[in-house]
């Protein structure tokens, strides 16, 4: 409806903006790929793609949860701290083996998500404030549970971090599976449709009799659980639990991936394919700058440019 309203006044520009918002990220990925193939040594190798895929997996998993939160017209700033909490819980429970450790980590993520969701849905706190509180408190709790870095010795956990199936590393397989689950949830389930309706207009959703509060709590639980899985996988790969630095600034990478991928911050729409491409774009951008040995501060500035470009492409929609 917004698109048609804009189309009446300036059909061409609106169409270009809509197209850029939806597909600009794929163009960006293609440009970066071509640039690297042309100018980066040893870029076209299976090993290199494996490295990029393994590194992007945690960002992608966190971004999936972030996409749900943003789709419901919210945001989840606590994801990085949930990763830290997850890594602390893994260290505490690894004595029982990796699966119990994973369970403990996910329960931790669910608990944080429940607090986030309850604050937002029942107490009426703004998402940015509620999740900011958990962002600060979550890392604090993580450091209380595990005050310093601890090495992982469990062979199963180590295999998870470095092993693969037919050349595809476990973290990548898990990320792909989670993408499929979240995409199915958003597109094909009642929960997905309710989430989008709430993101579009919360008063309208309430009037229509949708279980607004319950859906919102589930959204933040999903985001917390996904961030916990990302923290678990990052721990397996690092072969150590490091609650001090794991997941720092992850919320920014995840928000960038979602927004660049064409999901509007105003809610009501979730683009999973775009989110995947957005995460890949950030990863390729970092890889390109690192491989060409450009000053580290450039990476942050380049990310800023990408965010501004994405917001610019989305601005027509914001003017409704």
């Amino acid at each position, binding site marked *: 409806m917004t698109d048609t309203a804009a189309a009446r006044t300036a059909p061409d520009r609106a169409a270009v903006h809509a197209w850029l918002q939806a597909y600009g990220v794929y163009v960006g990925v293609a440009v970066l790929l071509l640039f690297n193939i042309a100018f980066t040594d040893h*870029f076209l190798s299976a090993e290199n793609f494996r490295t990029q895929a393994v590194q992007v997996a945690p960002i992608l998993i966190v971004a999936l949860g972030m996409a749900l939160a943003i789709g419901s017209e919210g945001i989840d700033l606590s994801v990085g701290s949930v990763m830290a909490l997850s890594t602390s819980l893994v*260290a505490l429970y690894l004595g029982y083996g990796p699966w119990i450790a994973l369970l403990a980590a996910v329960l931790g993520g669910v*608990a944080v998500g*429940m*607090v986030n969701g309850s604050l937002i849905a029942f107490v009426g706190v703004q998402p940015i404030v509620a999740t900011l509180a958990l962002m600060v408190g979550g890392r604090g709790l993580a450091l209380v549970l595990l005050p310093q870095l601890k090495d992982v010795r469990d062979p199963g956990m180590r295999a998870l971090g470095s092993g693969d199936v037919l050349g595809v590393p476990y973290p990548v397989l898990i990320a792909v599976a989670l993408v499929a689950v979240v995409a199915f949830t958003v597109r094909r389930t009642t929960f997905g449709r309710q989430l989008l309706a709430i993101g579009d207009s919360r008063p309208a959703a309430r009037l229509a009799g949708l279980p607004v509060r319950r859906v919102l709590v589930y959204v933040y639980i999903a985001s917390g659980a996904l961030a916990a899985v990302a923290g678990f996988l*990052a721990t397996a790969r690092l072969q150590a639990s490091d609650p*001090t630095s794991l997941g720092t600034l992850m919320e920014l990478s995840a928000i960038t991936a979602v927004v660049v991928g064409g999901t509007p911050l105003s809610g009501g729409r979730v683009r999973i394919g775009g989110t995947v491409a957005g995460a890949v774009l950030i990863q390729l951008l970092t890889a390109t700058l690192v*491989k060409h*040995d450009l000053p580290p501060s450039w990476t942050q500035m380049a990310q800023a440019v990408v965010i501004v470009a994405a917001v610019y492409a989305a601005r027509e929609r914001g003017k409704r």
Partner: protein
Amino acid sequence: MNPLARRLTATTALLTALALTTACAKSEDDAAGKSSGSQGGGQVAAEPTKGAKTCTIGRYGGKKLDLEKATVGFSQSEKEANPFRIAETASLKAEAKKRGVKLLSANAQSQFSKQISDVQDLISKGADLLVIAPLNSDGWEPVLKQAAAKKIPIVTVDRKINAKACDDYVSFIGSDFVEQGRRAADQMIKATGGKGKVAILLGTPGNNVTTERTEGFRDRVKQKAPGLKVVFKQTGEFAREKGQQVTEQLIQSKPDIDGIYAENDEMGLGAVNALKSAGKKAGDVKIVTVDGTRNAVQGVTDKWIHGVIESNPRFGPLAFSTLDDFTSGKKVAQTIVIKDRVYTRANAERDLSKAY
């Protein structure tokens, strides 16, 4: 129950469960053990250079006192979450206990404003002497004024403050980070034969430790081994994960890299992880790191790391003996540079217990 109350009850229950997690937790056993962590290998001051400036209590102001009857305040800058800070705090506490001195301590949790108020608190709680591990070099005027009014002697450890020695504070005890960089370069030159390509994993940008460890390394390589080229310089932010990720990119795009200089042990251990998962063998890429943590020295005995330059955090003995000398009227140096060890294959196994 209404839905709100029900939710809150459920949430509270979950949080309580989470808070109690430690009760039934079962972590992996630490095979390495942590017995001698804080005790072994106290610092030794390097030979003072001729004409080094000294300080006496007469010049500084204040009165002589018996250290054993005094109260010492210690202000730590960062959370004790990394081996360096853990060993530093433990060493000061152990030395205070050994000497029977009353020690008050505070931790600024990486917030400078908290450190300022911490030190002010320590003064008002009756500290006669202060040991400060500063988070920043600047911004100490308010505290220094307050301390000067009470003539409280201050010793800063591991980082300098920008103020006048023997006027605003007594002396600074710490490592020479530029020298650490030079010694790391020496190790790298020895390992690579002085030629080839090396990468630097930089510390956090804008940190003086990063700048000085880079400067020392770069200058020594330029001067002693022009055949050794630094072809890659990226930040690993002093963290293992970042060091691992950057090294993964590095070995994809520059598979012929000969050496990696990591400006702290954690990034070096991340580099080892990356090399291992890329199928490299121990010693294929020469790694030199700075710090001297137990994990890194263990890496030397496993032949994955070529050499570790120590940055000794055990300030306790030297800080207290300096305060003791000063308060009993003896001369103390204004800048006390400590002698850091180097761990190589020759001594790593024997000296593993001295690592922190």
